[in-house]
């Protein structure tokens, strides 16, 4: 098992292998996006209370989920990088950060657009908005640390420690902010036994969540490929690759 792990964990194999995956992941993402958006924007009934404006959840909720999911991916990649020194994990973590930050920003922006007609204000210092904002700070901090350290190997490992410190802190920050003050509506989907959302609204939302997931997978692989080229720019195989391109 470890043989495969090391073989495909090596930057060169990952570079070749990921090339095959990216178009497939991108294609699946596109299909799911079309299905989810038509389901959500055309077929789902308007909400009895919020009217048509509830439809922003088809972007808002998946981005909020992704913002947390990507942080966990980053921290897991960091742990793998620190323990097993897998170079691909470094590239994945570094490639994930800007994506995570974008999803966090998207969740905040869509939430704010929705908040204006619903709560009558662009921004409230509500627990979940605040912890999402703090998550954005954590992403930006990670990215700032990455750019501040010149040696890419050191930067990756320092980032790994930072993301692990962050992942220990996120639940503490989240609950302390929750406890501090809250206005945001409670989760409507996690109650699996009896979700308080109708299936015709829920199904497009789940499809959208998967679409975002595939988008992330495709783009993170694409970005990680460039990160690997940059990290391995002094190795023989990258040199051969560029020589081939030059013809």
């Amino acid at each position, binding site marked *: 098992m470890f043989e495969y792990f090391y073989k495909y964990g090596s930057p060169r194999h990952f570079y070749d292998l990921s090339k095959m995956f990216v178009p497939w992941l991108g294609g699946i993402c596109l299909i799911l996006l079309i299905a989810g958006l038509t389901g959500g924007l055309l077929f789902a009934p308007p909400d009895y209370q919020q009217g048509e404006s509830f439809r922003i959840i088809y972007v808002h909720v998946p981005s909020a989920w992704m913002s947390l999911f990507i942080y966990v991916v980053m921290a897991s990649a960091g742990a793998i990088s*620190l323990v097993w020194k897998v170079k691909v994990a470094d590239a994945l973590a570094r490639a994930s950060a800007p994506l995570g930050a974008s999803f966090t920003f998207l969740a905040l922006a869509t939430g704010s657009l929705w908040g204006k007609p619903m709560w009558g204000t662009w921004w409230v210092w509500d627990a979940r908005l605040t912890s999402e904002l703090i998550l954005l*700070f*954590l992403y930006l901090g990670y990215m700032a640390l990455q750019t501040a350290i010149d040696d890419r190997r050191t930067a990756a490992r*320092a980032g790994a*420690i930072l993301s692990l*410190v962050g992942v220990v802190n996120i639940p503490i920050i989240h609950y302390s902010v929750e406890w*501090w003050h809250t206005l945001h509506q409670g989760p409507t989907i996690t109650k699996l036994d009896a979700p308080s959302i109708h299936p015709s609204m829920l199904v497009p939302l789940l499809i959208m969540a998967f679409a975002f997931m595939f988008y992330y997978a495709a783009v993170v692989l694409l970005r990680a490929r460039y990160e690997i080229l940059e990290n391995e720019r002094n190795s023989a195989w990258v040199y051969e690759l560029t020589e081939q391109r030059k013809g």
Partner: protein
Amino acid sequence: MTANSTFAVFLAVLRRDLLIGLRHRSELFNPLVFFFIVVTMFVLALGPYADTLKQVAPAVIWVAALLASTLSLDMLFHSDLDDGSLEQFLLSPHPLIIIVTAKIIAHWLLTAAPLIVAALFLGLMVYLPQSAIVPLLLTLLLGTPVLSLVGAVLGALTVGLRGSGILLTLLILPLYIPVLIFSVATVDNAAKGLAITGELYFLGAMLVLSVTLAPFATASSLRVRFG
């Protein structure tokens, strides 16, 4: 390398850092002066009205304490990096965690302990109710060690980088939020005459968690940066 010699190393590092700190008096006083100035700025911005100040006093004192502690953290490993003793720590046969723990304790004693004494006077100056003074000191006593411990991890990650001061601040302040929330809530509740044990227990729990994890993380941060 016995347990005895490891403890001797701990004491030696602690003694060294305290001595260095006490001989650089200005560095010792600067965070303290900064603490006073920030609180004064808040009062100037808010106006000298006892009613307003009474309400925001816990927040003002705690935010000022956070900023003062952040500023001083940049110095934690800086001089050791400059004079090469950091290298000696990394090469030492003794566990790095022990050395780092001694450094954090020394740093806390030099920067946070004076802050707690100063907060006693500042609390009175911003009209904090008498009943809230002791709780304020208690939150500082439980909270500032958490700041030093968590800050040490990030201080180790950023030491010697270009623009490390602002970078450290950027990385550290989000992680200080839980301490800020619970401390201010404690003092607020005390000022209103409500129970404060719950919040104090939370602060205590954070202290235990960071005492357990932060020295390890600090040591491995140093190894990542320089090892």
